[in-house]
């Protein structure tokens, strides 16, 4: 008898545990079409919402299979699984504080799932009011964006950085001696007006959604670009009068008409705490790439008369995004990232040339279309499709040109004595993603191979590599300009008799020319 009573109590306890852990209650779901009930559950300090109830309220549905669930709303599909706190929509991640749970065969997710899903696909926000037990789905409120401003001057160029608390669109208006940055959001300025003792910037003032930069004269020109993480709008301004070494870059979009290869961005891989690979003799990839890139920049400026920009000129950290941002900012015609290779196999040797793989480029096109979707409403689909098509066409053109550029590099590197050419390859390399010009990455040699590490250290070898890369750029330039009908093919320059001398001054992000 006692045993039976004990069994009964245990059963009650077991049943109660299940009920407590997996019980659901009702709350209210408010959408633009009205209020509906939504089942919610609490576990581990999280509040979970019935995915079916939320999807149904928005005219969508949830389907299950062996690995998880698919939520479809307005033909947009997001997936989540029972063990993962990451969901996926259009290959973008939706991050949740805890994995979804299943209660009575029904999937429940935290509100972050729908926040991510609806923000990416429908410009909707999801807000949970615990006190009122009310889940609201409403158009995204465009909140006030905080703005911080800094002005620094490096060798005559004033860098004005507007750091924003979140992503916001902007437009720039150029006046005779001022720039106005018009933000597409309400902003919280750090001050109404502030004067600067700077050779280019007289004062900065805010009014409404505008930031006005008063320049010291009409001869001050600038380049604007944006950086992310954190989101920043940067305006580099400088005087044009000292000479032609720093020609102005117009803020207008890149000309549709092709005009040849004039501006080249050279990217020395790694830098700062990102040392890259280390050779068995202790040579650091970041030092070797900088040495070669510096020589290459000087050679291209001298021999091609090109405007050459280095993404870094010293042992500094530059993010991968910033490297292509610099190239885009200067509307470069060519981008070359310089690296030294490494492999677990000590015998691995030779040079390799990479350009971006097509699937990575496709992903970029999708992201661009998604971004377009987020920033528009109403006829978003049409604009998104158009953006996708235009972006895709542009990327296909860049990829085709990148392939030709890589071919030129491969052929010239092939002629290097003692360095085996391992061919042209395509790969999803982050530093090539987002470059709006032909772009390639060259692996000069294997720093992990003791013999090749010794070669990389050798200045004469570096000069030989620089000669080969210079000839490759010249060949590609001649070929490209002949194809677009603005120049006749010319012979590639011969090997340099002496190492190219670095220019007298060089500043990251500013131009150098050999003319």
């Amino acid at each position, binding site marked *: 008898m006692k045993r039976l009573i004990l069994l009964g109590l245990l059963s009650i306890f077991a049943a109660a545990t299940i009920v407590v852990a997996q019980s659901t209650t009702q709350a209210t779901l408010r959408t633009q079409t009205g209020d509906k009930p939504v089942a919610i559950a609490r576990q581990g300090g999280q509040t979970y919402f019935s995915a079916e109830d939320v999807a149904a309220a928005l005219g969508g549905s949830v389907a299950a299979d062996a*690995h998880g669930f698919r939520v479809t709303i307005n033909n947009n599909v997001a997936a989540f699984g*029972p063990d993962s706190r990451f969901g996926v929509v259009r290959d973008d991640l939706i991050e949740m504080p805890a994995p979804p749970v299943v209660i009575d065969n029904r999937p429940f997710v935290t509100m972050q799932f729908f926040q991510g899903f609806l923000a990416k696909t429908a410009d909707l926000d999801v807000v949970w009011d615990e006190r009122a037990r009310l889940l609201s789905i409403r158009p995204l409120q465009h909140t006030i964006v905080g703005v911080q401003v800094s002005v620094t001057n490096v060798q005559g160029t004033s860098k004005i950085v507007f750091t924003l608390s979140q992503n916001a669109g902007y437009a720039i208006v150029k006046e005779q001696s001022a720039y106005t940055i018009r933000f597409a959001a309400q902003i919280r300025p750090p001050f109404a007006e502030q004067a600067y003792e700077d050779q280019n910037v007289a004062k900065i003032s805010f009014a409404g959604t505008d930031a006005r930069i008063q320049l010291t004269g009409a001869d001050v020109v600038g380049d604007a670009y944006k950086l992310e993480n954190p989101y920043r709008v940067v305006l580099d301004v400088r005087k044009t009068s000292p000479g032609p070494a720093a020609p102005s870059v117009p803020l207008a979009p890149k000309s549709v008409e092709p005009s040849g290869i004039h501006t080249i961005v050279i990217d020395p891989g790694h830098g700062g705490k990102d040392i890259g690979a280390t050779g068995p003799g202790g040579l650091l990839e970041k030092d070797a790439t900088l040495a070669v890139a510096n020589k290459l920049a000087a050679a291209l400026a001298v021999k091609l008369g090109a405007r050459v920009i280095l993404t870094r000129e010293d042992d500094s950290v530059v993010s991968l995004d910033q490297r292509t941002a610099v190239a885009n900012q200067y509307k470069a015609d060519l981008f070359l990232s310089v690296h030294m290779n490494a492999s677990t196999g000590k015998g691995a040797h030779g040079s390799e040339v990479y350009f971006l793989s097509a699937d990575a480029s496709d992903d970029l096109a999708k992201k661009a279309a998604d971004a377009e979707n987020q920033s528009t409403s109403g006829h978003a689909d049409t604009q998104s499709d158009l953006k996708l098509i235009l972006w895709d066409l542009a990327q296909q053109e860049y990829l085709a040109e990148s392939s030709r550029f890589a071919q030129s590099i491969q052929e010239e590197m092939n002629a290097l004595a003692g360095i085996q050419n391992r061919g042209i390859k395509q790969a999803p*390399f982050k*530093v090539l993603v987002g470059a709006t010009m032909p772009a390639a*990455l060259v692996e000069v040699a294997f720093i992990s191979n003791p013999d090749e590490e010794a070669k990389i250290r050798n200045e004469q070898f570096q000069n030989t590599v620089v000669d080969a890369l210079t000839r490759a750029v010249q060949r590609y330039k001649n070929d490209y300009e002949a194809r677009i009908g603005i120049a006749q093919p010319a012979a590639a320059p011969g090997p340099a008799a002496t190492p190219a001398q670095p220019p007298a001054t060089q500043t990251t992000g500013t131009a150098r020319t050999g003319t």
Partner: protein
Amino acid sequence: MRRASLVVALALLAAASACRKPQPQAKNISEANNVAMRPVRLYFEDGNSLLTAELHNLPLPENPAAAIPLVVREMMKGPGNASLARLFPPDTIVRGAYLLPDGTAFVDLGGATLQQGWGTGTHEELMAVFSLVQTVTTNFAEVKKVRLLVNGEPAETLAGHVWLGRSLRPMASLVEPASR
């Protein structure tokens, strides 16, 4: 009285079991426990700088979501054949793996080297990333693409080159023809 107690206890048991409705995840757990020796193909770099499959037999559960982390952990141990090379840093750990209905497998990696910044070259990073992608997609037909995380968070790259901000599909050009 005894009969009445018995009836009450049985009624409570019935009520308790009624609360435990069968769920999809319960089915998965059942599959996860159906462990059997299964052959898997693990990919490592060979002397031609390409990925070659090495056959291993592993005790694996039937459920792919449960089996994926076990297969990747086995790959991290390195090859049995001395002519093949282990690609990931030796301290790499597999924190977990998940499979979503759209065919995306998440593999969450960790370990001091990946966390602090892996200083290696393009080739080694490329081969490491795609050895994992190739291993998972080859052994699990449900997996179409692989998304890598580091310490449970999205990562830009493992060593400064290969973009991890997207799901990766296998690259046949990196694999020996006989192992494709």
